[in-house]
Structure formats: C-alpha cells, structure tokens
C-alpha cells in the first residue's frame, strides 16, 4: 500500500520529482567519476612505484644457492622469489620475494628470516609499494598522505552533495505535510512514515543513480585516456591504463545510495517528528509567516517588485536548493578562474615571461662536473643554435672586508640588516654567502664583452647588486650596489669548512680571486641571481675554476647546457635543437632536457585539464540549481494559480505578471551572484595581497568574460524556466480558479 501511495504520487507529480532525479543522477555521476578516477590514480601510482622501486614486497640478503630459492618459494604465502642480479655480489645474494597475501608480509618474511637464521638487517621491505596497499610494517615511517587526501575529498563532496540534495527532497516532502498528517491521524507511526519516504526516494532515485554511475565511469575512462594522450607526448611518459573492478562499482553504488538516502532521511525524519496535529494543520509553513517588505525590490520595480518579493519569500524554502547550488557553482567558478589567472600572472613573472629571452632549450647533464665535460666544442658548433652556454653552479663563502660594502649598503646598516646569517671573521672582515656561476671560457669572454672589458679568463666578474628586501618585495625587487666599484680581489672559502666565527681559515680551503669587473649586468641564463639568500654572485670562467675548485669546491652535482635557437618562435625548431643536443650529449652522459615552447604548452594543457575538472563540477552544481528552478516553475500551475488569480482580480495585467516573473528570475540568479561576487572579491584581495602583486595588474587581465558567460548562461536557463512556467499559467483561465476547488488540497 505504501508503495502504491509513493508510485501514485510520483506518477502524478513528475515535475517535483524531476529535480530529485536530476540531483540523484548528478550525485552518482560525480561520485562515480571521482572514485573511479581516484581508483585509477591509485593503481597508476602502484604501477609507477613498481617501475621505480621494482616489483617486490620483501627482500633478504645472504649466501643463498639455487636450492634455497626453491625452499623460499615453498613457503606457503610466497608467490615468487627471484635473485636480484643488480644488488647481488660475489658472496652475498639478494633475493626479491613476492607474496600472495601482502597483509602477512611481515610475519612471512620473519619466518623466512628465522629459517635461514639471517640477521634482522638482512631483511628489507618495499615500504613505498606496501604503503600503497595500506600495509604498515614495524619500522615503516612512510607518510600516508594520498589515501587520507582522497578520502577527505570524497567526504567533502558527499557532504556538499547532501547539503544540496536534501533540499530537493525537503521541498517534495514538505508540500505533503498535510497528507502525512492524515496518515498519522489514521494511525501511521513515525517509523512507517520515514520508511515510506525513504522507499519513495529509493524508487525515484534507483534508475538515475545507476545511469549516473555508468556515466561517471565512462567519463573517468575518457579522462584517463585523455591524460594518457597528454603524458604520452612528454619525455619518459608512461602508458596510462584504465583500471576497473566490480568491487569498486559496488563501493560507488553503495556510496551513491548512501548519499542520496541520507539526503532523503534528513527531511523525512523532520517530517515524521511532526505531531499529527501540527501536520494536519500544517500548511502554515508554506505561507508567509510575517508580512515582511522587500524595500529594495519595491524601490526598483514598484508594486510588481513587491509582489515578486512576496512570491519569492513564500517559496523561500523551495528555492533554497537553487540559491545554495548556484552560489556554490558561481563561487567555485569565479574562484577557479581568478585563481588560475593569478597563478598565471605569477608563473609569468617568475618563469615564462621572466626567462622569455634567456633560454630555448635547457639540458641538465646529470652527475657531471663542468671540468670533466668534454663536448663543449661540439655544442658550440650546433647548426640550429645561435648561442650555447655550458655552466655549473657552486656555493661558497666570500671573505669580504667590512669597508668593501657599497655606501648604499652601509647606509642601510650593512649586509646583516637583511637577516641573513653572516659570520663575523676577525674584526674587519665578514664571511658572506657567495654563489658562483662557472661559465665555459668562450661564454665568459662574451660576457666580458657585454660588460665592456677586455676578454680575459683569469678573474671573476661580480654581480654588484643586492636585493633591498626592506624597501621592496620579491615581486617588484629593488636592488642596490653590494660592494665598492674599486674592489680588486675577493677570497672564496669552502662552504663546508666555514667553522666558528673568528676562526682563521685554513689556507688550503680558500682561494684568492682577482675581480675583473663589478657590474649590474647578467649573462643570459635561466637563473635567479642572489634573490633568495642575498648572496654575492660571482661569474667565473672555467679555466680559473679548474685552478681553484680543489680548494673551494661546493659545486652542484649537475651541470647545464643553455641553448638559444636561431629560430626562436617555431616549436619544431626548438624540438629539433633539443633532439640535436640530446643526440650529441646523451650518448656519453645521462641528460634531462626541457624546451621553452613545449614547457609552456604542457603547462597550458595541465591548467586546461584542471579547469575542465573543476569547471565541470561547477557546471554540475549549476545544473542542480537550474533543474530545481525548472521543477519549481513547472509546478506553477498548481502552486500559484490562486495567487495570480487574486492579483488579476484586483487588476494586474498579463504584462504585470510577466514583469513579476522577470524580476523573480533576476533575483534568483542575481542574489547568489552578488553574494559570491563580494566573497570572491574579498578572497582575491587577500590572495593578491599575499602574493605581493599589484592589484591593477590583476584587474587588467581579470577573467571577466568567462565569468560573465557562465552567469549569463545560467541566467538564460533560469529565464527559460520562468518563461515556460509563466506561459502555462497565462494560458489557464485564472478567473475560474477563484471559485471553489479550495478544499481539495
């Protein structure tokens, strides 16, 4: 009988069911998309880890023979035991063991260890891989961040979906308070009413949840494929597979139903708690409790504005879902757009624009000292390159007389005012941080020419500037000279041998370097000179470095090749140049390479991907809101016949009625828009402040167009909904409705 009641109700009130169906569909779609995507990320992570660390669970080292290997494989839970050739030596053999049941890996490895009487230190575990299977072994200290993050995201999504959907249910249920009052008066218990409502929710939502779930999986499949295509273009990209498992499907199904049923349970429980008396009298909720005025609407639009305000207030509850979901959608969309714009400006500043002119292809030569690199001549001959520089970075300390500081710096209070750690050495000297950039000789000579001195390779050129971080921020830095122009030598010390303040340094750990010039010019390299640590930057030719590197040291492990292409605008030219360099260097050295245009394209693609996923969520939220408006306006005939008949009977014209609808549509979209606009502006103000940007710079490129497009699209749909509802209403003969028919609900 209950089922019949629900079925009859659903049949006869399709429009109010619509918003619930749409909401359930979208909830399932989104949850299934997210979970399936996370599942794939996770397995992809597992695959990546297997490639990185090797596919093994436990590892034991000892003097094993072939028969021992067989013995290990006979342990009950062992799937496979293989000798790791790479790690095995003459006497010691390392065996990689894989288990069937990874849960007991610790116990089983201990058993193997006990059998061979091996020491505890002979056994290691693949913590990184096992942690992905949620197995924690004593001694494992890998942080578990991924899963909690996934769970948190899913939880947040569930809660926000519940927040939005429960209103859809509430509207449909509250419109029947009176009916449930009747049920209650003839003896339906609160439990029965709750069950009836939940059953109804189930009936209504089963199909859309199922369809949404499949659609979500299809969507995540598409996303994974798209990402596969993206990463395939990158160097070292891995094949991306789509993973799928019935248990995941079951899990998502459960989660979707749980979300929808909790959403239904909230209003159902509230309804079942009403006393029959409240319920049977209970149309009170749907009417205006107190006569409130709408001063703004009245002022703007006159009488129609006031009537529209009343209409909106009377259906405030019904419109709450719309407001909430539109607000979330607008806020999400605006924040996303603004955030990406802001971060775009920021990366331009620190990366793309800032280094626009100083590089095309960057190649990192791994684990190579610049002195030992033997292909410089070949690189200089590259056909597609205009200019190639080989360089390496090193860190050292510079022993500087106190009076060598420039007047400007002295006036500020000396280098110590920037809070950097500076060791006082004797009374008149300071040891300050020095960063050393070693250029190949030819490039150094070119730099000499740029600075305006005769080309030499027996001294250093100092970058004579220090960032005045007191009077400027990192975004718009101001520099002052670091040292006196006439400084003629500096002494570089080994970083590691810094020692105590005042301690005289060992001769063998320091080198005297003549200063060729102090300049504020820099060679064209993709480097940020001395900004983070206020260090004194030295440019040194390779020949000089050969002499002093034994004493000063401190070089980074890798060295770099920076190339500028002849044709700097075509992606093909850059790729060709990149290939050329890799061909020359890659045979002898391990290299990693980037190229400027490709980098920019990849970055753009990545941001486009983020925008797609986040924007998609916002669109889904907006759809929930719009669906709600539709189901509301489709019910106009039933809900508002009398209201408008009354207005008409006292002289409202059809035009007036349309005006009321226009105002309502405007307010429906306008209010959430206005609120979120204020919120977004406030949030952006904080973010702009925090990132030290000039606000004008953001405003100039603010994403006004996409935001306006989004808002107007939503408004278009809402207006359409009102138009369809209003047309129904204007077609029916309102005059008749004032007579009779008042008691049949």
């Amino acid at each position, binding site marked *: *009988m*209950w089922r*019949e*009641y629900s079925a*009859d*109700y659903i049949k*006869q009130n399709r429009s109010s069911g619509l918003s619930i169906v749409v909401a359930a569909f979208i909830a399932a779609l989104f949850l299934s998309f997210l979970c399936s995507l996370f599942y794939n990320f996770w397995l992809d992570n597992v695959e990546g880890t297997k490639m990185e660390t090797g596919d093994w669970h436990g590892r034991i080292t000892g003097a094993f023979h072939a028969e021992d290997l067989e013995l290990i494989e006979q342990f009950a839970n062992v799937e496979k035991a293989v000798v790791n050739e790479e790690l095995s030596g003459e006497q010691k053999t390392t065996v990689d063991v894989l288990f069937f049941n990874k849960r007991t890996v610790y116990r089983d490895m201990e058993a193997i260890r006990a059998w061979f009487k091996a020491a505890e230190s002979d056994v290691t575990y693949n913590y990184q891989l096992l942690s992905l299977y949620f197995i924690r072994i004593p001694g494992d200290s890998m942080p578990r961040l991924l899963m909690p993050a996934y769970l948190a995201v899913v939880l947040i999504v569930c809660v926000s979906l519940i927040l939005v959907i429960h209103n859809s249910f509430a509207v449909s249920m509250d419109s029947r308070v009176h*009916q449930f*009052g*009747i*049920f*209650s*008066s*003839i*003896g*339906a*218990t*609160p*439990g*029965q009413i709750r069950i009836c409502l939940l059953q109804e929710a189930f009936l209504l939502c089963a199909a859309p949840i199922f369809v949404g779930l499949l659609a979500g999986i299809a969507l995540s499949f598409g996303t994974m494929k798209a990402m596969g295509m993206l990463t395939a273009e990158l160097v070292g990209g891995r094949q991306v597979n789509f993973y799928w498992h019935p248990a995941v499907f079951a899990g998502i199904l459960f989660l979707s139903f749980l979300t929808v049923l909790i959403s239904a349970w909230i209003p159902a429980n509230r309804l079942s708690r009403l*006393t*029959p*008396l409240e319920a*049977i009298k209970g149309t009170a909720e749907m009417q205006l409790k107190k006569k409130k005025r709408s001063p703004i609407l009245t002022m703007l639009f006159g009488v129609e504005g006031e009537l529209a305000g009343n209409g909106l207030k009377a259906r405030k509850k019904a419109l709450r879902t719309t407001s909430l979901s539109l607000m979330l959608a607008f806020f999400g969309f605006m924040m996303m757009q603004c955030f990406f714009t802001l971060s775009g400006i920021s990366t331009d500043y620190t990366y793309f624009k800032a280094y626009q002119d100083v590089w095309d292809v960057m190649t990192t030569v791994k684990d190579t000292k610049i002195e030992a690199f033997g292909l410089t001549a070949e690189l200089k001959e590259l056909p597609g390159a205009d200019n190639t520089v080989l360089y390496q970075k090193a860190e050292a300390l510079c022993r500087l007389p106190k009076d060598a500081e420039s007047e400007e710096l002295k006036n500020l209070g000396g280098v110590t005012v920037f809070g950097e750690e500076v060791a006082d050495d004797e009374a008149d000297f300071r040891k300050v941080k020095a960063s050393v950039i070693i250029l190949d000789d030819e490039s150094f000579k070119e730099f000499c020419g740029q600075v305006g001195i005769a080309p030499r390779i027996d001294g250093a050129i100092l970058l004579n500037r220090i960032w005045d971080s007191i009077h400027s921020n990192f975004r718009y830095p101001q520099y002052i000279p670091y040292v006196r122009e006439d400084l003629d030598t500096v002494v570089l010390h080994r970083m590691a041998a810094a020692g105590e303040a005042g301690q005289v340094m060992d001769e063998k750990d320091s080198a005297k370097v003549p200063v060729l010039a102090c300049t504020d010019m820099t060679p064209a390299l993709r480097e940020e000179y001395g900004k983070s640590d206020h260090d004194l930057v030295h440019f040194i030719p390779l020949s000089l470095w050969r002499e002093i590197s034994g004493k000063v040291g401190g070089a980074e492990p890798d060295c770099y090749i920076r190339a500028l292409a002849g044709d700097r605008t075509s992606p093909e030219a850059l790729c060709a140049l990149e290939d050329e360099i890799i061909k020359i260097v890659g045979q002898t050295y391990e290299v990693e390479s980037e190229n400027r245009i490709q980098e920019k394209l990849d970055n753009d693609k990545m941001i486009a991907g983020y925008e797609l996923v986040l924007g998609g969520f916002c669109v889904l939220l907006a759809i929930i809101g719009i669906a709600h408006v539709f189901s509301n306006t489709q019910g106009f005939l039933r809900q508002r016949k009398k209201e408008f008949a009354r207005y008409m009977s006292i002289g409202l014209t059809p035009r007036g009625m349309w005006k009321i609808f226009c105002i309502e549509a405007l307010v429906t979209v306008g209010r959430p828009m206005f609120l979120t606009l204020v919120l977004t502006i406030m949030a952006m103000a904080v973010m702009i402040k925090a990132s030290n940007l000039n606000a004008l710079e953001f405003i100039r490129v603010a994403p006004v167009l996409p935001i306006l497009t989004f808002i107007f699209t939503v408004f278009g749909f809402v207006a359409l909904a009102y138009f369809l509802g209003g047309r129904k209403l204007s077609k029916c003969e309102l005059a008749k409705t004032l007579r009779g028919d008042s*008691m*049949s*609900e």
Partner: protein
Amino acid sequence: MEILKCEGVRKIYGSGNNQVVALDRIDLSVEKGEFVAIVGASGSGKSTLLHMLGSVDQPTEGKIFVEGTDISTMSRTQAAIFRRRKVGLVYQFYNLIPTLTVRKNILMPLALDKRKPNQEYLEQIVDSLGIADKMECLPNELSGGQQQRAAIARSLIYRPALLLGDEPTGNLDRKNSREIIDLLKLSNRNLNQTILLITHDEKVALEADRIVTIEDGRIVSDEKRR
C-alpha cells in the same frame, strides 16, 4: 461497560503570559454503545478534548483510559498504533489522500497493519454508506458528501472502539448532513459503535443519547436523554 474514562484532564497551550487553559480538569465517563454529542461555543475546547481522546495530542495533566488502557502517556509510535486500531477520526474537512483512490483510502488503516480487508464487512459498510460505485474514483471526483462518507468508511473499517467526529457535517448541506447522521446512528445501533460527536447544529445534537456542554474548558452540563 465503561469504554472511556477521563480523570482530571487539563490542557494548557503556550507558557508564561501567553498561557491558554484550553481544558480545565475534565472528568468524563462513556459507556460502550453510547452516542454522545459535545456542544459549546467556539473556542470552548471541544476540538482539544477530542484530540486528546483520539491520542492525536497529549494532556498536560490527568489520565485518559480507553478500554482500560491509559493513553495519556503513550509514546508516539504506541499512540499511532492505538489510533489505527481503536479510534476512528472524522473531521469537518474530509482529509482523504488526494492521489489515492477511494478504495485505497478506505483500506489504508488496515494496510498500515499489513492486514487483508474482510470483503464482506467492507461491502456492508460501503453499501450502507452508498459509495459502492465510487470506489475506484479519486477523491476530487467526488462531491463533498461523498467524500465525507468515504472518510467515515475509513474510520469504521477497523471496527474501532471509539468513533470521534469533529463537526463531520459542518461543511454539508441539510440533506447530506441528515443522511450522514442517520448513517452514524445506524452503525451506533447495528454495530453497537460508541460515537462522540462535536457539533454546532442543535438538530444534530438532539439525535444523540447524551449531550455534554463545554464552556471555557469545563463541562457545565451533562444531560442523558435516553
């Protein structure tokens, strides 16, 4: 046999300054098979009393026994089950579920208990109420009088101990109201059904065995006519 007994029933709405004493120490006893009319001015507390007897509301003070069970302290679920089995409520507005047919409306109290209807008894009621040919209609396809008959059929389907009517004829014309009262009297006599009826209509009141008059929440007269 005493079927209903009220002992010192008080009902107070609101609190503090807004307090309204709707019922003030009502003592009442009704025998099985009695037909009682409750009359009184508007706002005197008639509906309030009826709601207490139907366990739709609970008294602030005092006890109410129906067939020996105290219903004034029941939980919500117990009260609902009690209403379903022991009480038939009929209101001025017919309170049928608009989306269900008349038949389903009438059988709803049984369905709530997952019980099958006794076809013979159903036919007997429906025939005597004269709505046999309207069983598959929706409520809004019926006239007011027919809807009220359906509501009465629903309230009788469980053979309740008490039939409580809150101005069941208040919304009907003279002819229809006459017929409804005759039907109630018929079930009172034939089925020995106990009936309590609120009415503003003197003619209706005079049909009853006993007239209880309420004024300002107190019983001011209790007149047995037969």
